[in-house]
């Protein structure tokens, strides 16, 4: 088991160091923690090489649930066992949880004030735009590949079908995934 892609650095960082690392990347991570996680773990502390980070993160994306949360658990447990997983998770979620709860209280109390409602409406419109940009960036390689090969690749069709079922028809996610996931994985399996 010494050949694991996430080799623990020697000596492994202490629990408080682990907590601080995840707390600081979480608080810096505005609109997504991933770039900060890479910077903190790979560039600053050199706990992982870039390749190890990519491997660990792609695995985190594969698991269900929030990716960066999975990453903190996998990474923390690899370094310091169950305590490491708990500490990394607490560092990642604890501080933002406190901050966002305060925001929630303020919103409940002052959310109806016209000028604040105006600001929030502006932010909401921008947030929607950023998700559209993310979608376009993610979808680009998928559709480019299909256009370049001029073949009717199934992957873009799967993406469109999921979009239609969830975004337009508003079907419940579990039902859609129960059909789409096996189909899409089978298509990927037989692709070559």
């Amino acid at each position, binding site marked *: 088991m010494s050949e694991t*892609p*996430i080799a623990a650095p020697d000596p492994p960082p202490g629990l408080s160091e682990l907590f601080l690392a995840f707390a600081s990347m979480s*608080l*810096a*991570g*505005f609109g997504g*923690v991933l770039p900060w996680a890479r910077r903190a773990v790979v560039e600053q502390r050199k706990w992982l090489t870039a390749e190890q980070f990519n491997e660990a993160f792609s*695995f985190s*994306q594969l*698991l*269900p*649930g*929030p990716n960066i*949360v*999975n990453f903190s*658990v*996998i990474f923390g447990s690899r370094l310091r066992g*169950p305590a490491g*997983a708990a500490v990394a*998770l607490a560092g*990642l*979620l604890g*501080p*933002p*949880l406190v*901050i*966002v*709860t305060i*925001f*929630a209280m303020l919103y*409940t109390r002052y*959310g109806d004030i*016209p000028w604040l409602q*105006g600001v929030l409406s*502006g*932010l*909401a*419109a*921008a*947030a*929607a*735009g950023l*998700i*559209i*940009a*993310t979608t376009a960036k993610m*979808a680009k390689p*998928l559709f480019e590949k299909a256009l370049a090969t001029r073949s009717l690749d199934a*992957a873009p069709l799967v*993406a*469109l079908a*999921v979009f239609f079922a*969830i975004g337009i028809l*508003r079907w*419940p*996610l*579990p039902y859609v995934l129960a059909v789409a*996931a096996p189909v899409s*994985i089978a298509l*990927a399996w037989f692709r070559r």
Partner: protein
Amino acid sequence: MKGDGDILLTLAGHFALLSLFAIGGANAAVPEMHRVAVELRHWMTDRQFADLFAIAQVSPGPNVIIVTLIGYQAAGLAGALVATLAMCGPTCVFAFYMGRTWERFREARWRNAIQSGLVPISIGLIAASALILALAADRNWVAGAVTFATAAFGYWTRLNPLWMFTAAGLIGLAGYI
């Protein structure tokens, strides 16, 4: 109060389930959160949902923090905690155990099939998130223009989103949206 326990249980149930179905991260789970919180349970209006999503986006921390806001809106402090724990708990346990065994299958064909099979699904889900959020946020043509401009800047430039949020917030503050 009668009913509070029921709301907490409902929150826990929905988010624990969602935790295991959230392929592609928290943003891909937004349509299901919207369906449950707005359409099914009526915990908030469409507009409040868009507001909460925006607050989550401009707050530090991972995107999943939107569930804390939804939980608070539904059932106060206890709701915030329950929703967050339910969304992260099951998947954390899963990650903890899978993290120890999975790597030996790194080169396995079925692992690669799962990995590439889930990509188009994530994209479809995030596209649905984009549509639902845009429909909730864009109540007039100025808001629509802000969404369009942010999408264009986000796609074609490497401008820090903070600047786009600042500009959009100011446009909103000026009363145009």
